[in-house]
């Protein structure tokens, strides 16, 4: 393995996704190739239906490619089964979703602890408390998601994403469901934590302004990689 590929925490080669529909086979992603270096922040942008969410699902191993491969920190996802991919996610990946995806029956603290508990980490509570403090929710530990505002729920989700110190963070339209003030807060928080932890950030968005905060922008259109814009972010860390 070359030094370069070791630096590349995500390596995407010839990634293609086809689905069967009533009208025959439909290609959602076609021959995507790019790599992401460790600690880098990358935005995947594109219009609705361009395939960016599908790309995210393939990168995170939530779905399997029809062709090509994703290599996540040395693990070729195409060679792994569902269980092994879950293990990779548990060890190396954090997520932030547009719709927060908190477990309704768990409190803010318990939601943050969840990934660590699933991974069998005995230090879950200490880590979670520290992260919730960082996102400014120390006073909301015992609140359930339905008792939190949208912005607060997303902050819990961000705290959850960073527990267990993942190498890679995937964020799917993290501020799309929030008003501009809360959205801005969330974005700042996400980038700050990302920088502090040295995490690789892959952000899916259709918001050009948000994308510009990343070091690189990958444009997807019609399932194809249209262009990659390098070094756009003013705040390269």
């Amino acid at each position, binding site marked *: 393995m070359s030094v370069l590929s070791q630096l590349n925490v995500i390596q995407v080669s010839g990634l293609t996704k086809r689905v069967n529909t009533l009208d025959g086979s439909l290609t959602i992603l076609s021959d995507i190739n790019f790599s992401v270096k460790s600690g880098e922040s990358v935005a995947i942008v594109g219009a609705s239906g361009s395939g960016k969410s599908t790309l995210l*699902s393939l990168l995170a191993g939530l779905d399997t490619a029809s062709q090509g491969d994703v290599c996540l920190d040395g693990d070729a996802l195409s060679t792994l089964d569902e269980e092994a991919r879950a293990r990779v996610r548990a060890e190396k990946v954090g997520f932030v979703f547009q719709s927060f995806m908190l477990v309704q029956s768990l409190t803010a603290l318990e939601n943050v602890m*969840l*990934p660590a508990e699933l991974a*069998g980490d005995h230090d879950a509570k200490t880590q979670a408390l520290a992260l919730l403090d960082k996102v400014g929710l120390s006073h909301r530990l015992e609140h359930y998601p339905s008792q939190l505002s949208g912005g607060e729920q997303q902050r819990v989700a961000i705290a959850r994403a960073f527990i267990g110190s993942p190498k890679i963070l995937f964020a799917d339209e993290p501020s799309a469901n929030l008003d501009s003030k809360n959205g801005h807060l969330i974005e700042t928080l996400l980038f700050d934590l990302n920088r502090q932890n040295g995490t690789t950030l892959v952000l899916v968005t259709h918001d050009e302004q948000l994308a510009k905060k990343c070091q690189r922008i990958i444009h997807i259109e019609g399932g194809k990689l249209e262009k990659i814009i390098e070094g756009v972010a003013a705040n390269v860390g």
Partner: protein
Amino acid sequence: MWVKLAFKLFSREFRRGELTIIFAAIALAVLTIFSLSSITERISLNIAQKSSDFIAADRRLSSNHAFDGQILIKANQFGLKTAKMLYFDSMLFANDELVLGSVKATTNTYPLRGKITIKDSLISQAYEVGSGPKVGFVWLSEGLFYTLNVNVGDTVELGAGIFKISKVLVKEPDAPFFSLSGNKRVLLNYADIPTTQAVQAGSRVFHRLLFAGSEKQLSDYYAWLKPELKSNQTWEGIKDRQSPLGNNLERAERFLLLAGLFGIMLAAVAMAVSAKRYCERQYDPVAMMKTLGGSRKIIRNIFLLHLSLVTGFSIIAGLAIGFVLQYIGAEYLSTFMGTQLPQAGVRPWLLSGFIGLICALMFSLKPLLDLFDIPPLRVLRRNLGDTLAVSRIHIALSFMTIFVLMWIFSGEIITTLILFASTLLVIVILFVISRLVFSAGRRLGLRPGSSWSLAIATLQKRKNANAVQLISFALAIKLMLFLVVLKTDIIADWQMQVPPDAPNMFIINIAEQEVEPIKQFFSRHNIPHEDFYPVFSGRVDAVNGEPFARRVSKQEGEEKEEGAREGVRREPNLTWLASLPEGNEITEGQWFADGASDGDDIEVSVFEGWQEVLDLELGDTITLLVNEQPIDAKVTSFRKVDWGSLKPNFVMILSPNMAGKVPVTYFSAAQLQDKHTKEISKLLQRYPTVSMIDIKAQIEQAQSIIAQVSIAIGFVLSIVLISGALVLISQVQASLAERMQEVVILRTLGAKGRLIKLATLYEFMLLGGIAGLVAAIVSDIALLVIQQQLFDIEGRLHLYIWILGPVSGAFFVSFIGYFMVANTMRQNTQGLLRKLG
């Protein structure tokens, strides 16, 4: 680590009410089965015990010849308790009065079941004892005290012996069935028989052996005894074919069994619905856990632990509530009946626990497997996995489970099959009907913007879901209506059999010239009585000229009619009548035409049970031997006879032109009260050949059992009604979860709460009304079949349920729906949006 997480999730889910319906469904299945089987078992044990009391034993062997000593020795070897009895008539003499008494001599072990009721003097309180008089003593029935003008402590001559009268004999457990002179009964110790010298070779005596023990001991013993039995020996149990109790008991048992099966069905539907709903609500958390790296194994462990916990808790809760319920029920019954119900064994505990476990496992299995299969990608594609929701495997598995549960509970494959198949058929019909109804609604074209339009639009949009809902509503309503009507009919039928003014005394052996004076006596004392029937005994000698003995031996192999064939061999009481007696029904042929004169052929109407035994057809000629005089009678009809009616019943009724051809005595029945005892004694003194058979105890017992079983049925019914209500609630709750999103959208778009609430109210009203109507029609048809086939009650339509069904369905369903939606509407839209998020 996952264990802690699992417990945490479980406690939260429980508190949030996500597991409540699942918990309630399992607990309800368990408590239904427990309380049903336990109360049924306790009542059956009590009834069996009481019925055993009725023959003073579990089984008895009767004959007019002495028994081989080996019969008793063997019975003791099989571990059975035994008692010997001998009946004979003997003269009693005291104070210059001489009277013929009916003597029953019993060994010290008599009665094996039940108690003898006695009094210390004519005016003291009656009480119960467990054995008869000691050697040298006799107990006399009250009538004899008046006839002989004696008191307790006096002596009486019985045959050649002199005995001291120590008690007034009020009631023996088995008196009514064979005492032909109820008023002149004597109870004597078996060891005193030789002292009386009343039993000589050739004396008319009747022997009886009593047996008591476990069912196994009894059946083992009977297996040995059967080949040894002689033709003049009869083996009897408590469930005799023509026992009035037997029929009622069987009906009660069937009803309880049906109710239990319905209870299981309802609880199972509630369980299936709630398990599916619970698992669907877990799709997102599971997808999230998988995304966050949770392995399939951990997720499986977490939810299996949840299932085990909820199952464990609900089984314990079900058993506890079931125990309390059946305890309250049994206590109430005991107080009401004045008897203590025997304790049920471990069967109800094991059966209900096992059924709860099966219920939980089978109904959750497929939804859980689906849950484990939820792809993590659902976090991005929110509807992924929703298609798993309607699974044919789940449906098939659920049906199979219900079938197996019903089978385990009833132990009767035929009943289970009938009920199951008819329910399946109902479901198919309902599905078709619901599809038609919901499609038809589209053409109604109601005003846009109205609550009705919204209700109908919503109904049409969820066609499939509504069909499922309609089916479960209709099934629940159907089962409830079914049981309510059946209960009312069964109890009404029973009460008709034993009305409060039923005669309690049969008067037999009345000579023709005694009929008028006795009628006058009755009217003087305001004693209600039946008609006076002419009675004579006759034996079937031949059918169409073929000797009867040969005819019967042809069918010797058939077991089931053995008892009836025995009856044919005896000399049954016959009568002639101009009109068909109440409670009889012609099954074939015609009742006698009016005005048959002396010259015409004699006709006969035969009990349908004998039709099979004698292999009779209409037009056959039966030769009867009456006092050795042959009489030919042509069979012109067959009758159904209600042996449970406790009224005078006859196997053969001849046409009225039989009058004057044979000597007869008359027979009647009257309703006597205690205050009449003295007058009756005088009457019997004046007409010494007249005898009375006291069936008061029999009637009291029948009424007591009816009352007992009616209460039990009411109790069981209320449990089934609760199950039904739970099914409705779980269905409404499930559908509400589905429509939450819609409510939120409508609210966000500014729809008034009133519009949404009314739309829901109408929607549920329509659903409930349609379900109720279909349920009413289907249950009425099913009732028609089941009442005739299983309960032997005349089937008829019950038009009131055609109204009751839709009205109660619409009211109940819309009430729950409205209440739940109104509850939702109290939260603000933002709150609802967050809940959905």
